[in-house]
């Protein structure tokens, strides 16, 4: 036995030596630490929130008054398309991956994600695909057929030029990142939970990330296929969507919405998980109906796959199919209702502390209920046919998306940033930010219900005076800028806290999950000893967890023999094996760069360039899988 793996002998290297990463700016390129990757995801996604937000503000400015000519109709088309694409694919999904990346290993008591290099790769591909999509602005070929990009509008006949190619290839590109991340979450959550964390002791936020990941694995391939078919049709003259050659435009809609409806849940489920993580802490009360919430999350993810055609009520599908889907679209409100009642019950049973994160949760509850109700209205087919593609739809899904995602997310930011940076965000500024956002949001989006019922179609570049739309549009625009200001206040708060925030300490809020059992920010190895947990709220029920490392006699595992983590069993979390983890490496960033070059090559039809990209990608892959040390990650 040449290598010594004796955890107890004093000669073994310390955790700092085994887990320490290179320091300095360059190390951000090579890091495989889930916390630094999570932080990169978070910051990058926020940058895309700003980009998408600026696009929406320009649109709102254009619509403030009738007959304005701030921008051309072509640019307007490009803006709403990029706004939708950015918000859905470059902000909402990645920001949840960011939080998940940072928090999931900490919450389940692991030392990293299951595949640290794949994790880094996922981030770099996300960044590269964002750069790819936004590089369309440089060449002036910005996608302009809306985020759902219906054919034939986006087909070769009506959309010549390479604008839509940026869309199709860009979405394939970002899907690589999202899928890699999802598989990583699934394996991490199923196989790396601390000993004792059986399946009924998984924190609800982690359940949310798991439901999201399963939905991604099952739904996203359909979008990828849709985009591949579209690209084949556009670039190589294949026929799938054009009726003249035996294709069918509705095929696109089916493929898109089989993905598109679950996508909404992909975004909502982890956000609801955040709410379920915050409520117990700020009420000091265990979550009422844990098991019901978990079942509801899973049921939502499942039913989400059955109702895609409710986006297609006006396409002339058979009546039976429509009735069936309409019914199940009513049903999908039930699991959300279950969760809402569980939250309200917990709030009533506990003593709510109105800190900033809690304000965002309450704001979320109100807004989300309104969005849910207007959603159920669509399930009534005749009503849907009336308001289809009007501003009522825009109002509805922003109540669900901004309300269901942005508010929980900002609450989560105030709640968890202290863990990540070691500093508290300003409470006063936080409250200002919340109230500005809350007011701005409702002022911006509530009038859109009215505009929709008055008949203003979505995706209108401008409108005539005297239709009754002028007033609500102006109000809505004012609200949009107010909302933007509120968001900016939180960003300022984030920057401010970096230097002036009060030190956070390990556990500023008295939380109930494992991330509070380590320092803020946590060390590279997360926990000095991997703890054994005995309940759903370990830091509440095992007070000694807060006193530092759990000693081996009490169940803590120091795992000192190397860059090691623990593999545990799927259902009851018993230790099964010790796993050697990989170290920092440049392979993921190189491979992603190859992909970026390759995708540029394809979009411009520069096949030599595409070949260069593919070669660099292959080189990165070979470097990745060539075992240099005792890792067993593939």
């Amino acid at each position, binding site marked *: 036995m040449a290598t010594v793996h004796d955890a107890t002998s004093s000669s073994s290297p310390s955790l700092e030596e085994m887990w320490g990463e290179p320091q300095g700016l360059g190390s951000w390129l090579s890091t495989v630490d889930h916390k630094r990757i999570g932080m990169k995801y978070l910051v990058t996604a926020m940058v895309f929130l700003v980009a998408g937000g600026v696009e929406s503000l320009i649109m709102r400015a254009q619509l403030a008054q009738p007959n304005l000519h701030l921008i051309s109709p072509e640019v307007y088309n490009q803006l709403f398309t990029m706004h939708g694409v950015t918000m859905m694919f470059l902000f909402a999904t990645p920001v949840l991956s960011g939080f998940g990346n940072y928090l999931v290993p900490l919450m389940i008591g692991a030392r990293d994600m299951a595949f640290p290099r794949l994790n880094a790769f996922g981030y770099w591909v996300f960044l590269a695909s964002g750069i790819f999509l936004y590089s369309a602005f440089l060449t002036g070929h910005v996608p302009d057929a809306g985020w759902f990009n219906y054919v034939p509008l986006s087909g070769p006949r009506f959309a010549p030029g390479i604008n839509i190619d940026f869309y199709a290839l860009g979405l394939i590109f970002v899907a690589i990142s999202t899928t890699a991340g999802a598989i990583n979450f699934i394996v991490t959550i199923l196989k790396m939970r601390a000993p004792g964390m059986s399946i009924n002791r998984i924190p609800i936020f982690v359940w949310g990330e798991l439901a999201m990941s399963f939905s991604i694995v099952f739904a996203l391939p359909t979008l990828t*296929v849709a985009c591949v078919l579209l690209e084949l049709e556009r670039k190589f003259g294949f026929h799938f969507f054009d009726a003249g050659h035996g294709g069918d435009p509705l095929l696109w809609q089916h493929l898109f919405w089989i993905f598109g409806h679950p996508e909404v849940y992909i975004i909502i489920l982890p956000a609801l998980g955040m709410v379920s993580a915050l409520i117990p802490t700020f009420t000091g009360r265990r979550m009422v109906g844990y098991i019901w919430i978990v079942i509801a999350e899973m049921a939502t993810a499942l039913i989400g796959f059955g109702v895609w055609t409710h986006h297609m009520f006006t396409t002339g599908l058979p009546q039976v199919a429509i009735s069936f889907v309409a019914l199940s679209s009513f049903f999908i409100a039930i699991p959300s209702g279950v969760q809402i009642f569980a939250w309200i019950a917990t709030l009533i049973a506990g003593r709510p502390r109105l800190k900033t994160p809690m304000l965002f949760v309450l704001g979320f509850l109100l807004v989300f209920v309104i969005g849910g109700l207007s959603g159920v209205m669509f399930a009534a087919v005749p009503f849907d046919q009336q308001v289809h593609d009007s501003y009522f739809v825009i109002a509805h899904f922003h109540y669900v998306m901004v309300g269901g995602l942005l508010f929980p997310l900002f609450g989560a930011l105030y709640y968890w940033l202290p863990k990540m940076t070691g500093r508290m965000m300003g409470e006063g500024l936080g409250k200002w930010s919340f109230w500005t956002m809350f007011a701005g949001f409702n002022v911006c989006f509530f009038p859109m219900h009215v505009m929709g019922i008055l008949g203003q179609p979505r995706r209108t570049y401008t409108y005539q005076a005297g239709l009754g739309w002028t007033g609500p549009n102006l109000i809505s625009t004012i609200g949009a800028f107010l909302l933007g200001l509120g968001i900016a206040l939180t960003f300022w708060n984030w920057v401010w806290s970096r230097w002036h925030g009060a030190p956070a300490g390990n556990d500023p809020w008295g939380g109930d999950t494992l991330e509070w059992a380590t320092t803020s920010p946590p060390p590279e190895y997360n926990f000095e000893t991997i703890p054994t947990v005995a309940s759903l709220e370990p830091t509440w029920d095992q007070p000694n967890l807060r006193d530092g490392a759990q000693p081996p006699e009490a169940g803590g595992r120091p795992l000192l023999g190397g860059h090691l983590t623990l593999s545990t069993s799927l259902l009851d979390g018993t230790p099964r094996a010790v796993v050697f983890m990989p170290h920092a490496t440049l392979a993921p960033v190189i491979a992603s760069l190859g992909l970026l070059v390759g995708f540029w090559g394809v979009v411009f039809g520069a096949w030599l360039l595409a070949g260069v990209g593919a070669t660099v990608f292959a080189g990165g892959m070979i470097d990745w899988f060539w075992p240099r040390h005792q890792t067993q990650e593939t």
Partner: protein
Amino acid sequence: MAITHATSDVPEVDPLVPTGAPGELLPGYASGPDSFGFWGMLGLITTEALLFSSLIASYFYLRFRAGPHHWPPAGIAPPELTLPLIMTAILWSSSIPVHLADHAIRRGSQRGLRLGLLGGFLLGATFLGLQLIVEYPKTLDLFTPRTNAYGSLFFTLTGFHGFHVLVGLAISVFVQIRAWQGAFDRHRHLMVRNFAMYWHFVDAVWALILCTVYLSPRL
């Protein structure tokens, strides 16, 4: 960048590692369901399976939209079966040596590993060669991907599968190089097992492609 690796290519880890809990020793290397790689590969296969499902669903969707008597469309004969069935036999038999290689290394047999991997590679390459050199030119004489939706679907489905065979072959080369370097042994062979899973998956998917593209139009 100053990243130091322990550059030992020949694994010398004792399979049992102490966790620091009193008296607890756990395997220091896992390659089945206790490893992460196994589940990662399963996840990959699941998404891939859904990619193929979406493609096949698109095929039948367009076929049913075309109506009962238009598939293949007028002027195109139903596909020839002899060659595809020979190709099928070759591809499916390639799973056998890969399976044997996988089990050989679990017994520690380097020779069995290398021979099995090589056999699987040769059979897979033959399949791909037949598809590209014989089957596609023959089909292109009848219709192309640009002729109509039927042609597009034919080449997209078979081509997408062929691409997976190609990727499988590339992985196989990589694993074979590692095998010749003696990188695997009775305990450490995760990469071999994962490759075998992937390969069997690609072979299994061919059953669906065969039924969809070649057999179903003759029904």
